[in-house]
């Protein structure tokens, strides 16, 4: 009887692990359905990044030796989504309204505001989703008048301090200039700003 109980427990654990393994990105508590929220016009996006699942594990594995902190951050993530839109030629007030709507959507679903900045037309919001005392999602929304609007949703086990450290060490204009590596070659190592 005891053996049977142990066997049943093991099988149940395996079953729940299998269920967890199969959990989709959209089922994660830190996931924000940016597509459904219709935040930015899709045909005007200047940057669109969607990374999820096994690709994140492969990125983490590839960076383990050369960039251990970046690797450990990525290893805990389930998904990264970035959408950016240049505000030239776009109805800025409409984008502003949609950002406001998304902020309400987040607050209605228990996301906690970590940063709200409204200064000379510029708006920036950072929200965190907390589950059982751990941060499971980060969403950043920003609008810089005449420049661009950006939304970022990072899903998974997040250490904000680690994200802060890494994000400060990466330079966006430089990244944009990095060419895609030739087939079979390792990607170039990014220069870190001083």
């Amino acid at each position, binding site marked *: *009887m005891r053996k*049977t*109980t142990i*066997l*049943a427990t093991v*099988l*149940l654990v*395996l*079953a*729940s692990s*299998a*269920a967890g*393994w*199969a959990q*989709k990105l959209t089922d994660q508590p830190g996931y924000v359905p940016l597509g459904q929220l219709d935040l930015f016009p899709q045909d005007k996006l200047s*940057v669109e*990044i969607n*990374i999820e699942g*096994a*690709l*994140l594990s*492969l*990125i983490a594995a*590839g960076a383990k030796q050369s960039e251990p902190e*970046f690797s450990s951050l*990525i290893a805990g993530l389930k998904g*990264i989504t970035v959408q*950016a839109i240049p505000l030239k030629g776009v109805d800025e007030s409409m984008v502003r309204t949609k950002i406001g709507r998304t902020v309400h959507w987040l607050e209605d679903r228990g996301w*906690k*505001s*970590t*940063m709200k*900045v409204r*200064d000379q037309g*510029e708006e*920036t919001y*950072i929200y*965190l989703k*907390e589950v059982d005392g751990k941060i499971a999602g980060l969403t*950043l929304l920003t609008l810089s008048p005449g420049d661009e609007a950006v939304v*970022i949703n*990072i899903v998974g086990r997040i250490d*904000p*301090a680690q*994200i*802060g450290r*890494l*994000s400060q*060490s*990466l*330079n*966006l204009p430089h*990244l*944009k200039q*990095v060419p*895609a*590596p030739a*087939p079979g070659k390792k*990607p170039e190592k*990014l220069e870190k700003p001083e």
Partner: protein
Amino acid sequence: MNRHQHDPSCDEALDLLEAYVDGDLSADEVARLRSHLEGCAACAAELELATRIQSELRALPELDCPPEVLEKVRRAGRGEVVPFVPRPRSMGLRIAAAAAMLTLTLGGGALFLRLQAQPDSPSPQEIAQATQEAKIALAYIGKVTRRTSTDLREDVLQKRLIEPAARGVSRSLGGTQQSEKEH
């Protein structure tokens, strides 16, 4: 005096032996058999063996048949349909079987979803591109926080997320204590 193999009367006698031992022969048959056995040592030896086997079988202990089996046999004998009732299995086995089914179902489903979601493994170029994109995402956060002169650090989180939550809890606790005092 060994007539056993070729004498037709021996064949008849051997056919009657079992019934004789069981006491099922008529008086005429018993008389005829005895008359043969007196003159046939081989058949007499067969009789002795049959008698010994029967007495040894009778000496075996009797086994009690389970009453439900007896009842089934009786009902079957009366032409009634006897339903099959499976033996009750232990609860542990049932749980193990259910867990095994659950594991197979969820494991199979998970594998199916994985295979559906990722039909191909990403190429090294795709991984390198995704690495750059992940860094772009982080760089955007860096750009925004630099622009707003803030940083995602523990102290910012402490100030903006944890402390307000803690204050909210203290306020509600304080409110409770206050109302208790009033009572």
